[in-house]
């Protein structure tokens, strides 16, 4: 779990002042985690890179407003967490892209756990890319985001809920369903093998 950075407000102020070195520091600190989230969400390295780049550019755009609302040296400034802000942007961008791709392909992703025949068929198709990857990518996008943020990035439920713009109760319910779906898919995978 990433520790909150005490100088995020100062970094935001430098970004607002259009300090390129500040953006370079942000990328060095956060881009790795953001890339992991994006990749495990969309399953494509190039698309994940695009998402991370877009998130960094959005931070660049919003830096003046962030710096204005969270001035350095104030309680509001101390409360600023650039990692949380960036993870929320990446998660939303990934979900948007998944939904856009679904609209284009016409494919429907079920909210509940996949039924065995469908899971089996998808697993068979995706076995070439790895059974584990298929397990996660078979989840609906919001359930997938819940697993990625809490299991892989080890975020507390509260921070993960904030990254997904949800209240904690709704997020815990979503996470519960995501784990159940994952277990059912894992069990189905084992039966298929």
């Amino acid at each position, binding site marked *: 779990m990433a520790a909150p950075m005490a100088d995020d407000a100062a970094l935001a102020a430098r970004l607002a002042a259009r300090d390129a070195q500040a*953006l370079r520091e942000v990328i060095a600190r956060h881009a790795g985690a953001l890339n992991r989230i994006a990749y*495990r969400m969309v399953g494509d390295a190039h698309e994940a890179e695009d998402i*991370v780049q877009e998130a960094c550019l959005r931070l660049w755009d919003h830096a003046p407003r962030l710096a204005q609302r969270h001035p350095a040296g104030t309680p509001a400034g101390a409360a600023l967490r650039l990692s949380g802000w960036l993870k929320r942007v990446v998660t939303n961008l990934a979900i948007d892209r998944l939904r856009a791709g679904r609209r284009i392909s016409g494919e429907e992703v079920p909210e509940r756990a996949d039924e065995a025949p469908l899971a089996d068929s998808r697993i068979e198709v995706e076995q070439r890319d790895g*059974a584990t*990857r298929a397990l*996660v990518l078979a989840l609906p996008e919001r359930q997938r985001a819940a697993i990625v943020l809490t*299991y892989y990035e080890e975020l507390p439920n509260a921070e993960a809920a904030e990254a997904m713009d949800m209240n904690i109760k709704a997020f815990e319910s979503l996470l*519960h369903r995501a*784990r159940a779906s994952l*277990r059912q898919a894992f069990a189905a995978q084992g039966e298929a093998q």
Partner: protein
Amino acid sequence: MSPAEHDDGAPIAPGSPLARALDGFVAPDLPAGFADKVLAATATRPAPLPELRRTGSTGTVRGWRLGRRIAIGVVGFSALATAAAATGLLERVGLPVPSASKVWASITGDEPASKPAEAAAAVAAVPVDPAPAAFAPVRIEGPIDTPEELGEAFRRIDEVRKGRSEMRRQLLDQRITREKERRAAAGLPLPTPEEEARIRQRLEEARLRREGVLSERIEARREELRERVESGEALTREDIVRPIREEQRSLQQRQQLERLRRMSPEQRREAVRRLPPEERRALMEAWQQRRAQRLGREAPAGTSPVETGPQSAPEGTAEPDPSRTGTAEAEPPR
């Protein structure tokens, strides 16, 4: 089996088969030069749009909107309630609306004390201002076919006449007072007490003379009515009230003529022109009649009373003799 394994939504335990499987999903690293690529993109990035003025999600904005809606609602309800109270709608549906004096009395708590004072004031006001009694209508219901009913009608009419006479006397006093004040303010000489007494006496004589003439005519009319009742005829309200209305109309016309007489010729012409045709015609006829009476008294026999055209009648030439035309009540002391 642990309880967590029974619950499909339980956290994924480290080292479990599912955890080992998930750990196999490894993300690749970002390519080298990613930071340079992002920094290069910032150069071609268009400027962000300005922030919206109203976010709509802040507590302050929401509070102001809510407060404004409440204020509009309160003002609207007050307006409707006021309109309903003013039009008597609330009393019609059985909701009593207290008057302002009652509300004030309930606040100050002096309601019992104020009532006698009001009653005393009302009693004291009666002789001072008889105008309300003067304007009280004479109501005669049903046909009058007995001398007693006719006598009662005459008595009530006399009361009204008495009130009107008193009202005229008060008006005369007020006008004299106002004129004296006006002359004093303008630095004009005031009449001496002897002159004022003489003027008042002249006006009083004119009034008595006019009322005497009027009383004679009324008495003659009443005698005629008495005879009609004694002969068994039932009189209607119109038979009795008509002379009173004629008297009222005559008084109004005299006052109007007096006002016209005081105007400059231009003002008088404009005022006459603005009158409705019917009223203008009636006024001209009244003036001609009055002028004919005056000429009949002053001019030698044989002179036509209507030699002057009606259009020029009220303009300046109408300088009535107060002692003859009866407009002397309106004549201020000179």
